[in-house]
């Protein structure tokens, strides 16, 4: 095992922990995309460039975008509900 491979493994281990440790969903999504980058490096240094190529787009762009859009939708719903409540009270 080379130093690069050990470094990539360490980055993935730290990154996975960081994703769990970040509690705010918005921050968590961004940490997740950095974690995806670490995974890409891991695949690359372990000689799986085909997997690394798909991983780089899916996990650093695709997945975070979908989560961010879902978060936005959830916020919209919450705001809508609050507005309805204030209208009912008045």
């Amino acid at each position, binding site marked *: 095992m080379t130093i690069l491979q050990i470094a990539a493994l360490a980055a993935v281990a730290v990154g996975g922990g960081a994703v769990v440790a970040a509690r705010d969903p918005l921050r968590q999504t961004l940490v997740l995309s950095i974690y995806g980058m670490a995974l890409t490096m891991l695949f690359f240094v372990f000689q799986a460039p085909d997997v690394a190529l798909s991983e780089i*787009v*899916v996990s650093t762009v695709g997945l975070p975008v*979908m989560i961010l859009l879902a978060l936005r939708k959830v916020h919209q*719903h919450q705001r809508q509900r609050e507005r309805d409540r204030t209208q009912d009270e008045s």
Partner: protein
Amino acid sequence: MVLFGVAAVGFGVVLVYGLSGLPAFGHYHGVYGKVINGIGVTERHATDLVTALNFDIRGFDTLGEEFILFGSVLGVVLILRQMRGEHDRPRQHEADEHTFAGASEALRALSLAVIPAILAIGIYIVVHGQLTPGGGFQGGVILAAGPLVVFLAGRYLRMRIVAPHTLVEIGEAAGALGYALVGLSGLVLAGVFFKNFLPLGIAGHLLSGGQMDLASAAVGLEVSGAFLVAFGEFLDQAMVVSGSPRS
């Protein structure tokens, strides 16, 4: 906490026991992999054996994977379009450019510069699948990232112009159909489903590997279409101000 402790210790014991039985790092024992490594270049004239495996030797499996993606995107579309009632439709125009007016000039200029590069890399990876790492799936997701950058530049409606619903849906379906047709051509022209039916060419040249180029292009079209359909649905959900939540 006691339960967690017991579970953690038990898991640790099983994990260490399992890991101790693994072959040492770098010692691969699979026969199939060695066979593929041996015959890939001579029998299939492809220098990237992962692509040779996906689009030729094991092409039927890829057909299944293709339709897993197709089916899951179809599911996303079915669920989200039903959630979005008809009354939401007209309000989409309100959620236009001003929603994302926050995108700065620098971000827009940078996105504009990046889009051609993304498209070029995507197409390169699709057509060089049999030569270098990459292929239909990898190139497809990279291509799908292009229109997404248009969105990043703060142009939701522009993205809809670049990648309209109907076009990406047709692209996805055409890609899936095209891949199935590659298999059927093998059945008709060579006698076996997914048997390589095109001349293999010279190993290392762009037009080598026979059907791999065709299969790779079909998968690239299907994957980029699938991702764009899914992104489009999610974007519509997030952008459209929903009507009365009680309806």
